[in-house]
């Protein structure tokens, strides 16, 4: 007993205790739900068997039912489009801004920081504000586009099935730009100035310096930012709740929102779990690649 006390007061037991406290919590509230999710995806779970511990296992039925769903394919491709376009534009705009604010002018750092205001706002508020900007009849975006002569009639961003997905993408790009920009700025700042000076003395042009120095040296950072962008985009839920709610008739629905709808609007919880399991699997793979690559970099 005395030895026990000593290990915790003065030895490595103290660290173990501290880690266990947090890890235990995460096991109960993150790891357990994760596993439970997988279990439920093989069970029949509905409103009535919800609170019961004795639920029938149905094998792969839920999976085949979800895959067989008519809307599965369009929602899947919506998700791919949502992630692909969001990440691409977040990254390019964010990188452009990072490069711009890397230059030396008064207030550069402070102004750059202001962009994070977009990131700090609750997703639901961002969705509400964009919903208003994108509104069909009275939205300011339609007005601006019309005044510039870019469009003829009004675009009904939120209710036209052919464009409603883009409303979510536009808002999500806006939301993701700051984070991309800040992370890439960190990477840019880490490139020593003398490397550029040496290249300049060697006669490299601005574009040449970007292609031969900035890009190669930023490769790891870009990889990290892309992975994080994919992860965060797949987490995006609030914007859909505020903007289109997946509609009209699933035209703007994505898997993470659909999973929730299955569970909480249709009470097909088993099927909702299936979608969650598939998505989580994908997110975890991306995260695994990301974490592995950053870890290795530190070791090397």
């Amino acid at each position: 007993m005395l030895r026990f006390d000593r290990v915790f007061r003065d030895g490595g037991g103290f660290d173990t205790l501290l880690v266990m406290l947090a890890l235990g919590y995460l096991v109960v509230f993150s790891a357990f739900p994760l596993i439970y999710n997988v279990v439920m995806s093989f069970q029949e779970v509905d409103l009535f068997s919800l609170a019961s511990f004795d639920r029938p296992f149905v094998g792969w039925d839920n999976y085949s039912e979800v895959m067989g769903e008519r809307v599965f394919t369009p929602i899947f491709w919506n998700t791919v489009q949502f992630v692909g376009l969001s990440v691409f534009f977040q990254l390019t705009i964010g990188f452009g801004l990072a490069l711009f604010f890397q230059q030396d002018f008064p207030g550069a750092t402070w102004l750059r920081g202001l962009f994070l205001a977009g990131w700090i706002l609750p997703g639901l508020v961002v969705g509400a504000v964009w919903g208003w900007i994108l509104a069909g009849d009275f939205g300011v975006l339609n007005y601006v586009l019309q005044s510039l002569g870019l469009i003829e009639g009004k675009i009904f961003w939120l209710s036209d099935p052919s464009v409603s997905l883009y409303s979510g993408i536009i808002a999500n790009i806006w939301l993701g730009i700051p984070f991309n920009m800040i992370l890439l700025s960190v990477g840019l700042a880490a490139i020593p100035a003398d490397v550029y000076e040496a290249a300049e003395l060697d006669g490299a042009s601005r574009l040449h310096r970007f292609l031969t120095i900035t890009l190669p040296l930023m490769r790891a950072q870009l990889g990290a930012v892309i992975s994080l962008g994919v992860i965060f985009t797949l987490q995006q839920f609030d914007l859909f709740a505020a903007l289109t709610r997946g509609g009209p008739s699933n035209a703007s629905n994505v898997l993470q929102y659909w999973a929730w709808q299955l569970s909480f609007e249709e009470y097909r919880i088993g099927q909702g779990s299936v979608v969650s399991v598939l998505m989580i699997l994908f997110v975890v793979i991306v995260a695994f690649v990301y974490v592995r690559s950053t870890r290795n970099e530190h070791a090397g």
Partner: protein
Amino acid sequence: MTQQITLSGIEKHYGGYHALKGINLDIPKGQFVALVGPSGCGKSTLLRTIAGLETISGGRIEIAGRDVTAVPPRGRDIAMVFQSYALYPHLTVEGNMTYALRLKGLSKAEAKARAAEIAEITGLSALLQRYPRELSGGQRQRVAMGRAIVRDPAAFLFDEPLSNLDAALRVHMRAEIRKLHNRLGATSVYVTHDQIEAMTMADHVVVMRAGVVEQQGAPLELYDRPANQFVAGFIGSPAMNFVPGRVGEDEQSVALDLAGSPVLRFAGRRPSGEAVTVGLRPEHLELGGAGGNSLTLPVALVERTGSASYIVSDTDLMIAATERVADGLGQVTVHIASERVHLFHPTTGVALR
């Protein structure tokens, strides 16, 4: 004299790495001991095991007659001065100095009075309300010392405390720490990689290499009678010259493996024909061939510091001369007393006498 710190058979493993190999060390009360060696020799690890900051894999540590092997740092009654000083940045100088006292259970007033008293000794009185970031490097060093002294511990441990100071200040603080030690009469263990620091400050020097004590003793003892080639090369500056040689038939002289095979007499006898490594300290090679036992060397380079001239021969032997040497010296003849010629075993490096 009673032993203040006793280390017996200290072993330390880091995974597969054997950092300390059976270290034995007795430190009498009031002695100033320096642990010296190249980086990675285990001297800092040894100090940290005395402090209790590292657990040991085997052996026994006693401080002031008490077995503290399993006692955590806070129970060992030792004070430590760190290389980075480790001053608490969120506390004033006074706060730094009273921190341990308050933990010991002294009242605020008592602790403050004690800190003021020590601040007087260490010349910190005017700085008590300052924060570490407002102090110069030398002042921080002083606070680190003050913080240790105020504890009145069973032993002081120093982990390269002067290596962050510039050269001039280092020499100054060296003297100051030693004076303080004389005044307080405390037991001190001082880790340094600088053999001059060790030689000038310590009563007793422990030379370490690769987790082993190579030799320990009084500073001049190590200089005069190094136990092996490593200690001989480590102690003394510039470093001792080593030349291969072979003992002659008279068993009292050695032929050096240099052009012309010059022969030097040495004190003592070795079997004829034995292969040896001959050690010659640069400062023991005196210019001029008077008295025999001399050798003539072609000069490759002369370096002058003003107080001394370092003559480097074509075979990289170094001669330290106090007199000024003229330019364009083709060769030089030097004399060495026979009792200053060191012999070492050519493979094990053990001193041969």
